[in-house]
């Protein structure tokens, strides 16, 4: 991270005083004991307490805080629940965190027009929770949905296990209220489907806090399916498992989820959760939705496809308990891996057809780097999550793991994929951006940031490689 600005640090008392004067008493935190709680997000390897934390309750209070920071030229780090795995909400010592977690109202539930309007501090899961009695749900379902907020979901364009069928956040977002860096409030989109004009909301979604702070959102909601049921298919090779995924997708059956776990992961899960998974090279969990008859029909098709590929096992769940047993291992995979040691969780995407090759190459890289790796991921859309095991107490091991991780992400780009499918760039993948994008490709993205944030105060040192963004930041400092 860049060295904190000594000028800003020396003005800290004035900055805190200005924020306190303009905001409710409990909205500003500056005591080092308390700001420590905000020193990192879920990428805990990097930590740094901020200068202050502001926790507003309304859009107007967010705007006030933004205006003050802009006038006093203080960097702002937007924060939701802090579950980012890419260091997206990592503070700097000279920044003010503006957290939206207290903006927690459900403003409007309109099932006739199929949308809800929420303040963005609501958690992902609570949106669906509120909708349950109406027979609707909100589709994007990141695994962190119990904790993560709609604000963070929008900033990261988060997805989940069910996005194969329902898409990610950008496909389910209709409108947003955004506080710009100057404190001005703009409305993008709305409850209508697809307004004309430039798609600024599409640009905002996934912008990782680089363009503004989102305080309200209009979300598309969907009727709940009648039911859902998973099947588990075991294969004795990664290639056949990959082939099975491609054949299911081509068959016309569109499952809501296709999850993949490799042997390393399976052994860890078995030891931890005793899920009763078969001992084999790869397991797929495929979930389909509909009425009981519709589900039977889709499962019959999937069985036909799988049978042609000689699976080690094809396990169908016939009731809720059996369904839960199938998901149990997958859901506990990250915890199970944690018992084997420390790990870093990667997030690259590859074209589905490249899955077998990529898995083979990851195995080879694992031997080269001398570190074990487990693969558990959303196979339907090629979004891989290799987990690299290392020993945090062993000097040099983390660096080795990071180097290995970088090699995997480069591999993803080389086979036609990308650096991140859902976790975002943050600081974690910042310096790899030049692998995926050439100079002009990054320049135009930075020029777009310039339009929204001419002083480059929003979420500093994220997304864009420091070296590449240096001239932009220097220019911005003169504005």
């Amino acid at each position, binding site marked *: 991270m860049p060295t904190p600005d000594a000028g800003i640090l020396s003005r800290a008392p004035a900055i805190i005083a200005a924020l306190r004067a303009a905001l409710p008493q409990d909205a500003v935190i500056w005591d080092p004991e308390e700001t420590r709680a905000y020193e990192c997000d879920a990428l805990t390897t990097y930590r740094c307490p901020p200068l202050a934390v502001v926790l507003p309750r309304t859009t107007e209070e967010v705007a006030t805080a933004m205006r003050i920071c802009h006038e006093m030229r203080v960097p702002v780090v937007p924060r939701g629940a802090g579950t980012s795995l890419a260091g997206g909400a990592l503070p700097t010592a000279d920044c003010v965190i503006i957290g939206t977690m207290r903006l927690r109202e459900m403003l409007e539930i309109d099932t*006739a*027009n*199929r949308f809800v309007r929420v303040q963005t501090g609501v958690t992902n899961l609570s949106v669906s929770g509120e909708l349950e009695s109406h*027979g609707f749900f909100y589709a994007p379902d990141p695994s962190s949905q119990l904790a993560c907020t709609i604000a963070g979901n929008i900033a990261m*364009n988060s997805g989940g296990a069910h996005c*194969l069928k329902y*898409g*990610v956040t*950008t496909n389910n977002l209709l409108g947003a209220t955004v506080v710009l860096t100057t404190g001005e409030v*703009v409305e*993008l989109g709305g409850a*209508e*489907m*697809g*307004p*004309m*004009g*430039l*798609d*600024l*909301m599409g*640009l905002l979604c996934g*912008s990782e806090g680089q363009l503004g702070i989102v305080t309200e959102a209009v979300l598309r909601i969907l*009727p709940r399916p*009648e039911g859902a049921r998973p099947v588990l298919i075991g294969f004795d090779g990664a290639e056949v498992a990959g082939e099975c995924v*491609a054949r299911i997708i*081509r*068959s*016309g*059956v*569109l499952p809501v989820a296709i999850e993949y776990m490799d042997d390393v992961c399976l052994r860890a899960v078995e030891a931890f959760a005793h899920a009763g998974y078969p001992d084999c090279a790869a397991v797929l969990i495929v979930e389909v*939705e*509909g*009425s009981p*008859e*519709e589900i039977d*029909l*889709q499962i019959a*098709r999937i069985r036909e496809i799988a049978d042609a590929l000689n699976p080690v096992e094809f396990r169908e769940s016939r009731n809720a308990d059996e369904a839960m047993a199938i998901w149990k291992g997958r859901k506990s995979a990250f915890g199970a891996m944690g018992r084997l040691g420390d790990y870093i969780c990667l997030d690259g995407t590859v*074209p589905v*057809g490249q899955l077998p090759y990529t898995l083979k190459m990851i195995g080879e890289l694992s031997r080269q780097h001398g570190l074990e790796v487990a693969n558990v991921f*959303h196979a339907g*859309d*090629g*979004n891989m999550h290799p987990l690299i095991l290392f020993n945090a107490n062993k000097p040099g091991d983390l660096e080795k793991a990071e180097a290995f991780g970088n090699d995997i992400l480069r591999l993803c780009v080389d086979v036609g*994929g*990308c650096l*991140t*499918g*859902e976790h975002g*760039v943050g600081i974690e993948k910042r310096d790899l951006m030049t692998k*995926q*994008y050439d100079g002009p*490709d990054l320049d*135009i*993205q930075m*020029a777009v940031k*310039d*339009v929204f944030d001419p002083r480059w105060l929003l979420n500093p040192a994220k*997304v864009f490689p420091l070296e590449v963004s240096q001239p932009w930041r220097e220019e911005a400092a003169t504005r």
Partner: protein
Amino acid sequence: MIADIPSRAGLAPASEAELGALIADRRSSGQPLRIAGGGTRTQTDHVPGEALSTAALSGVVTYEPGEMTLIARPGTPLDEIETMLAAEGQAFAFEPADMRGVLGRNGAPTIGGMVAANASGPRRLLAGACRDHLLGVRFVDGQGRVLKNGGRVMKNVTGLDLGKLICGAHGTLGVLTEVALKTLPYLPDRCTLGFHGVTAHEAVAIFSAALATPFEVSGAVFRDGTAWLRVEGLGPQLGYRRDRLLGLIQTREAEVLDATATVTLWRELRDLAHFAGSDAPLWRILVKPSEAPAVAGALAALGGVFSLDWGGGLIWYCGPGTAQEVRGITRHATLVRRGGLTGPAFPPEASAVARLSAGLRQVFDPAGILNSGLMDQ
């Protein structure tokens, strides 16, 4: 490079590099360019500058049915692509319309024009718009820079999503040179339920009820007193969904159309056959579905006719009324067929949004030479 072009009529660069050199040249001399795909959709007659054809930037780069991805150059005719997808049992789920009948054109719609216009038909209701299926783009901006964004994979959050901006910018930010799109299985099993003799109000009530079910209704259009619902599904799934919907909506006797009739009907509905062969102004209006009956009623009082799509979320209004009158009734109104009306085709933006849009245009096309003023004339 530019000197090589004259063998073809007008400006028709045959490579990205050629296009880049051409635009860089025009940028320095400030001469505007009018981008022409098939010329079947957007009315660009009033856009200043020499026509730039994408016809020589054509061809499919890759199509992987097992990955559901297609990469093509912009000038590729859309019907060629749709035929190719159909041979693999796939299609673009967002169902782009053929606007030739409505706009009185006879070119060949291109895939570049489709993306530039974010063209999305009745199935948008279920499947999302073109922009939701766009995976990546290559384009040349107004400075002649060759740029790329996104890629060819389904999930990608690497950096800012410029594809969303380009899609629907009608060629005002850059000239597309390659588009990567998601394709989806096109299932043959489908039927249509028609509820005759209903008012717009009753139609939207039927739509709201149907769209609150998990039966994946993939079309909800109201035209000439009939509410049409399209139902899809695999084999017996289709019958199940149809019967459940019929059971739910018992207010009216329903006509049920088979798969063949369904395909014909929805092509007509998609292409707005009911508004073809006329010169009257045609407006595309976005509302909340529940507001559609009142808004459409107020529009009809001007003397024209309307139909509804997207379960009431989209109103097509054809008939008299000045831009001021139409926009006085409803905000999100775009003039798709001018019919003699002058003034901006696109609805005005709120001032803060307009300022951001202008800032972005300045970034992509500082000299304002690409489809100059198209989106604000």
